[in-house]
């Protein structure tokens, strides 16, 4: 019922519109007929010459205005083109650097990781899932890894005059080993058949060796040498562990 009523209304409106359009058309015819009927009267009226002069000036002025607008449009278009080329170059250079320069790739990676850290730090983590916060009683070094991936537990720790170590394992028997050396030691890392590259740990150049399913990172902090070895752990996770080896917090110190 309502649909039919609406349709009627629409048809009536269309009809009215068309009829008014027809009236308009007749009005146009009337105007032209009226003008034609007064053709002779028109001859008596002279159009001032300066109207023609004004029109010529007006056309010139319009042309000038259009030229200015056109110039602006072209200038704008060229500017947009330049920006597009600059963006493409920037992307190209970035791609090249990421592909070929380790230090650049790592710095970029760090930026991404930092951003991710900022935006993921609201994650809720249960206390029992971070057993690595408990410091072993015999741990005498002033540094400690404040990040160990989930699923790993501390198996043993050892401390001596020259070397201190922490050993973690997960359920798949995959290990994380952190060794902290005094500055007097000389380290010889087994890099045979491994891929060696430079990475940055807390803005300090470090050596990273990837060999089979192990990743090793060696870096220095203050007067200490650090060696981190992970098994079947991602590059990102390994870097995060290394980055989070920090000075012991006051509340974690053994009394």
């Amino acid at each position: 019922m309502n649909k039919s009523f609406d349709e009627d209304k629409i048809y009536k409106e269309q009809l009215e519109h068309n009829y008014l359009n027809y009236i308009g058309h007749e009005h146009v015819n009337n105007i032209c007929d009226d003008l034609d009927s007064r053709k002779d009267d028109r001859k008596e009226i002279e159009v001032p010459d300066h109207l023609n002069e004004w029109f010529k000036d007006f056309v010139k002025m319009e042309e000038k205005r259009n030229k200015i607008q056109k110039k602006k449009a072209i200038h704008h278009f060229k500017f947009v083109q330049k920006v597009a080329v600059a963006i493409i170059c920037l992307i190209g250079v970035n791609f090249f650097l990421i592909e070929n320069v380790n230090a650049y790739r790592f710095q970029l990676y760090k930026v991404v990781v930092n951003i991710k850290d900022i935006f993921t730090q609201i994650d809720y983590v249960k206390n029992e899932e971070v057993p690595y916060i408990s410091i072993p009683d015999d741990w005498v070094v002033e540094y400690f890894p404040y990040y160990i991936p989930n699923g790993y537990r501390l198996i043993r720790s050892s401390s001596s005059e020259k070397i201190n170590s922490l050993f973690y394992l997960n359920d798949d028997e995959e290990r994380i080993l952190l060794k902290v050396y005094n500055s007097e030691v000389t380290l010889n890392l087994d890099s045979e058949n491994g891929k060696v590259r430079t990475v940055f740990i807390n803005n300090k150049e470090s050596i990273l060796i990837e060999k089979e399913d192990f990743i090793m990172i060696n870096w220095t902090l203050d007067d200490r040498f650090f060696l981190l070895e992970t098994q079947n752990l991602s590059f990102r996770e390994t870097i995060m562990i290394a980055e989070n080896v920090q000075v012991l917090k006051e509340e974690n110190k053994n009394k």
Partner: protein
Amino acid sequence: MLTFLLMIEDEAQRNKLEEIYATYHKELFYVAYQILHDYYDAEDIIQTAFIKICKNLEKISEVKCKKTRAYLVIIVRNLSFDRYKEKKRTVLTNFADEEMDIKDSNSSLEDFVLNLEKGKELANTLSKINTSYADILTLRYYYEYSVIEISELLNISVDNVSVKLHRAKAALKKKLSEGGTLLE
């Protein structure tokens, strides 16, 4: 390429404007002079009209046709009416407008569509009641201009356009309801 396209467009527009002026400027000057009876005012109105025409050039598809001719006349004579009102400092009202109490009648336009042959007469009558009613109605329904476009073209407020459109339709309905007895 962009420059070339812009140049072609510019030249076509300029040629169209020049053709319009060459074809119609005398006629338009005559229309303005008939209302204002003053050369300077008529000249000024033609200048104002061409500035407006220049802004609406893309809406003119063909120069030498009745549609364009009437369109230009409508602009010029409405601008002239405005100037006349300003000069006289009185509100120009058509006596027929005052005499006619324009109210919506119960009849609707679709009842009279069969009287198509009376369209010309009806348009003529509406023009006699108030020329600007017929002009605005024509701009709205024949030239398909929006109310805002009409207000910009004729230098009148949007409200004024709406009121005139409403009155034009009411006047037409009233004439139709009188059974086709049209004003002579």
